[in-house]
């Protein structure tokens, strides 16, 4: 049994679909953040069969977790303080997604404009439809 100790202050992302934790690590820009991260992969789960878990030791306020709602709203977010879970956060679809997904429309200005932020806007919450802010092309790569 692999043991990873608890964290004093931070958050734990549980019930991540097996194999998805590395993507989330990058999408949350944890590689650029000044914090300790434990990535636990392929953990046995009664509910999911296999799952990933991410333990992040830093203040949750420094993180923009909205993107998690877009990636998978079934992920559980546990906020930890003093080694205890003090809050469970529900995920919702973000109104806008910045610099996570890219517009694939070759006619879109994002294909040529230098350093232009990629922005997608939630246009249909029920069907989880996001469209490029600039050309309104639907994102279909999820």
């Amino acid at each position: 049994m692999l043991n990873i100790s608890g964290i004093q202050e931070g958050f734990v992302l549980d019930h991540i679909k097996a194999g998805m934790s590395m993507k989330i690590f990058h999408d949350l820009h944890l590689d650029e953040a000044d914090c300790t991260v434990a990535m636990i992969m392929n953990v046995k789960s009664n509910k999911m069969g296999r799952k990933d878990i991410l333990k992040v030791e830093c203040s949750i306020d420094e993180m923009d977790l909205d993107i998690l709602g877009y990636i998978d709203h079934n992920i559980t977010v546990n906020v930890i303080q003093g080694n205890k879970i003090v809050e469970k956060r529900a995920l919702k679809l973000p109104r806008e997604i910045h610099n996570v997904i890219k517009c694939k429309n070759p006619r879109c200005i994002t294909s040529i404009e230098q350093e232009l932020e990629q922005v997608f806007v939630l246009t249909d919450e029920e069907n989880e439809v996001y469209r490029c802010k600039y050309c309104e092309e639907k994102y279909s790569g999820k």
Partner: protein
Amino acid sequence: MRHLMSPLDFSTEELETLMDLADDMKDHPEKYSESCHGKKLATCFYEPSTRTRLSFEAAMMNLGGNVLGFSSADSSSAAKGESVSDTIRVISSYADICAMRHPKEGAPLVASTHSTIPVINAGDGGHQHPTQTLTDLYTIRSLQGSIGNLTIGLCGDLKFGRTVHSLINALVRYENIKFVLISPEELRVPEYIREDVLDKNNIPYVEVERLEEAMPKLDILYMTRVQRERFFNEEDYLRMKDFYILNSEKMELAKENMMVLHPLPRVNEISVEVDNDPRAAYFKQAQYGVYIRMALIYTLLEVGTC
């Protein structure tokens, strides 16, 4: 400061006010002939367009203002690789308002976020062409008395035709509008217009392939050109360009008070013989385009409030 990116940027009430102003400018041109004296319009056209650019320039001149600009990407700093956001920052220090056409969709929106002057989207790729839509709405209101209670046929390239997309977006806000979408299967309206605009607003519409079939039902027939520049290959363009040609024979099937509109330029989708039909309104439409652009420039420059 306001920009115009989409016809939906103005509420229907604001559009009515804008059209009332255009009416006044049409009826009393002398009242406005010096209203933009000392103001400059920059026409930044990254792809060729004679009509829209000249319409903007004529509008500004009618208001007593001046114009400057470029009419192709080759003659602008874009050829040297300058970004749209840099270009607009510079233009902002030269002019008071900017009309931008760009082949890339969303380029005027990028410009508007970096601009200190009002930016008007004068067409961005296959996406939006709001001033054409204002022209279309104003033409409909001027010739039919009001916008609403109409069956509108849209014919031709409905997939890449930005004028069509903008017009549908704008018309769904009016009472009792029905659409007949007439196009070959390959050039049908994009899914996002069907799903997010027509279906979402419960707008009745049918998609048909034959123009003759639709003619008797229509109050307005909006013809569009199958544009060469929207195709990735020449073969597809040549195969489809002559699909829908309006001629006197087809006009006989139409109602007596139907109106034919076209954003122009026409290639051969409307036979020249139709020009003499009193229902052919496309040249009047071009004239109305100048009045509504005058009203738009005047409004965005906030001339009346100074």
